[in-house]
């Protein structure tokens, strides 16, 4: 069976309508159909792995939409479709109580096609069209969320449109110069674009940073992720913000390296690919994301800021420019796609049973939802970059690159983000899953099978990519080899060699497993322990039933890091500045309206007269 990206997109756009109608008929059926469609995408992309195929959608007239699937964009397509599939699987039961399920599925399929379209684009026009398709589809998707979701969606739209407009300008700049939108043509002519290259770089990379949620243009992530429908958050954070990383990859790595490679340069070094300012922007993003995440009180907003921090790692890796850093940055896209999906899906599962994402109101859910807990635990271990999970591999590669180049400040910040991430990922673990289970959740059950299955898939993939990193790294190493970037060596499934040292993730996992099993056996050999109720606690002599009538009182979850927050409280919030700017613009527009349109006829005539006089008297 011959798949092309074009045919997948055709099928997506046709099925979107069918799925809409099916979901109107039965929500479950529609979601199953969506899942099957996305499953087909995963399969199709998987078998497209070693093909270099270019497919077309013909628009009558001068412009065609062209798509390709080759080694340069395959990893993006693969991870994108996996996350799509997983969240569609989750939605089979997850959409049960959702009001506009039909529109949700319809728009999800559109977002799905846009994922294929953006990552599979062979020319900038296609990329742009699907980028905008994603923008409006996800605008409506976000609007379906919580109460504040409407204004969050508008903010998201506004920021997305800024990035789209930056792109459209850059797109035509390059079109004027080379006469084509095609990525290959641009890459081949990259050297001749020297007069507009700076502008192009700023336009596209800024667009990518906005979409990617990198400081200082990350401000939309908090409200958008926090209020979007829970299932969509995983797609939004898992893939859609990776669109930004993809653009950054294209302009920072792909074009220059491809051009140099075609010019016959045998090895493209870091000096050609490194962009220090961008790397530092990524680093600031890591810090801001980490510190802001620690302060969040809402489960999803916390994950949103962790996305900011991880987008920073991706940009830092890509922009740093050495083979190992780019490998780390690009593989972090995989890692974060999976972990963000895992975290958001577990947040969605928690919301599904409790109806809230406010961490204060929960506790002890691990007793009721072991699978969700496991998903979250694995995801955070990966997020914090702890071996033997996937997050460690990509971060380790970035550290190696930074240390090898001796960039202290960046190394320090990268570690800062990593250590800081222990703090913020632990907070939901402690306050949502562990501790005291409030009575109101006494009757909750683990989520239905489809949601469990989708979370399990994410968990297993995170573990597999951690223990056998070659599955994740090999496709990216192929890119680097094709672009003649000196890269790290990988032996077998798990042995990675860099300039500084070597790492065998499988060995780490085995030793970890041995230690764990040894202790567990020892534990069971010793005398059996008695299990007690959740109230039976050490209370310094007080009787629990007397001092705490509800478990909520006996659960430490409010202001979890208050003492730490006190240390960083003085820091100004960028979001506040944006809000002030917006208020000023809004007030200015109000004034315009008031002066020009709301005044009466005499004022109108004054305006007319003044306009005429100004037009006639100013010598232009």
């Amino acid at each position, binding site marked *: 069976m011959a798949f092309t990206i074009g045919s997948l997109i055709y099928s997506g756009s046709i099925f979107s309508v069918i799925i809409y109608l099916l979901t109107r008929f039965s929500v479950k059926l529609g979601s199953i159909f969506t899942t099957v469609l996305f499953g087909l995408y995963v399969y199709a992309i998987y078998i497209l792995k070693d093909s270099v195929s270019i497919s077309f959608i013909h628009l009558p007239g001068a412009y065609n939409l062209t798509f390709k699937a080759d080694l340069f964009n395959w990893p993006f397509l693969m991870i994108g479709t996996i996350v799509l599939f997983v969240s569609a699987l989750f939605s089979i039961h997850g959409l049960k109580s959702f009001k506009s399920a039909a529109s949700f599925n319809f728009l999800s399929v559109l977002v799905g096609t846009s994922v294929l379209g953006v990552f599979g684009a062979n020319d900038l026009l296609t990329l742009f069209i699907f980028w905008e398709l994603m923008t409006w589809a996800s605008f409506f998707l976000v609007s379906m969320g919580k109460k504040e979701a409407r204004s969050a969606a508008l903010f998201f739209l506004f920021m997305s449109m800024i990035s789209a407009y930056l792109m459209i300008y850059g797109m035509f700049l390059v079109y004027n110069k080379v006469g084509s939108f095609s990525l290959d043509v641009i890459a081949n002519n990259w050297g001749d674009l020297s007069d507009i290259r700076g502008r192009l770089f700023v336009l596209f990379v800024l667009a990518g940073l906005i979409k990617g949620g990198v400081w200082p243009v990350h401000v939309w992530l908090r409200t958008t992720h926090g209020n979007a429908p829970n299932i969509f958050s995983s797609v939004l954070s898992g893939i859609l913000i990776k669109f930004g990383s993809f653009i950054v990859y294209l302009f920072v790595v792909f074009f220059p390296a491809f051009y140099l490679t075609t010019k016959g340069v045998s090895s493209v070094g870091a000096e050609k690919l490194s962009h220090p300012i961008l790397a530092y922007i990524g680093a600031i993003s890591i810090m801001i994301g980490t510190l802001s995440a620690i302060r969040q009180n809402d489960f999803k907003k916390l994950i949103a800021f962790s996305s900011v921090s991880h987008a920073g790692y991706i940009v830092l890796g890509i922009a740093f420019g050495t083979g190992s850093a780019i490998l780390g940055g690009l593989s972090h896209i995989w890692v974060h796609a999976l972990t963000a999906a895992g975290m958001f899906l577990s947040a969605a599962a928690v919301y599904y049973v409790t109806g809230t994402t406010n961490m204060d109101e929960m506790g002890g859910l691990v007793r009721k939802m072991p699978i969700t807990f496991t998903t979250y635990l694995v995801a955070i271990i990966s997020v914090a970059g702890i071996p033997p999970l996937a997050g460690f591999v990509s971060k380790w590669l970035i550290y190696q690159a930074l240390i090898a180049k001796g960039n202290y400040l960046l190394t320090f910040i990268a570690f800062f983000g990593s250590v800081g991430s222990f703090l913020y990922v632990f907070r939901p673990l402690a306050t949502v899953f562990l501790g005291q289970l409030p009575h109101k959740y006494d009757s909750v059950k683990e989520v239905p099978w489809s949601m469990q299955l989708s979370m399990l898939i994410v968990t297993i993939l995170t573990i597999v990519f951690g223990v056998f990193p070659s599955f994740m790294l090999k496709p990216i190493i192929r890119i680097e080899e094709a672009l003649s970037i000196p890269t790290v060596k990988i032996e077998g499934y798990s042995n990675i060699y860099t300039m500084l040292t070597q790492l065998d993730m499988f060995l780490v996992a085995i030793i970890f497993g041995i230690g764990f099993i040894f202790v567990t056996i020892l534990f069971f050999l010793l005398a059996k322990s008695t299990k007690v109720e959740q109230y039976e606690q050490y209370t310094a002599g007080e009787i629990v039933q007397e001092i705490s009538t509800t478990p909520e009182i006996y659960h430490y979850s409010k202001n979890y890091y208050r003492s730490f927050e006190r240390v960083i409280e003085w820091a100004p919030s960028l979001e506040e500045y944006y809000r002030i700017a917006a208020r000023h613009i809004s007030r200015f527009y109000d004034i315009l309206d008031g002066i020009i349109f*709301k*005044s*009466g*006829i*005499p004022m109108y*005539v*004054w305006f007319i*007269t003044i306009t005429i006089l100004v037009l006639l008297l100013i010598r232009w």
Partner: protein
Amino acid sequence: MLSWNEFLIDWVFVYGPLSIFFIGLYGLMTQKNLLKIVISIDIMDLGVNLFIVSLGYVKNGVAPIYTSKNLIFIKNFVDPLPQALVLTAIVISVAVSAFVLSLTIKIYEKYKTVDIDKLNTLED
């Protein structure tokens, strides 16, 4: 010393109508009463119409009429077109005046006021 002709062309035929026009404009800028605004527009109309007519002026001109008895081409014909145009313009301005006055009545019936400031608060 200004000749009578120059005075006529400049001051009576050009600046005269224009000043009438500007008086109307001044009325529009300052008046708050709908009726006064209507009158101001009519004054502006008047100014423009006078301007058009005056452009057709030719010194010692004669009526641009050919008859079967008078077929001689005379150089100082008065331009007939502006006069034809001004008729149309006058008709239109009369129609507009009528319409706008009826609107004023309607507004008065609806809001019981013809003051612009009050109307602005009543309907936006």
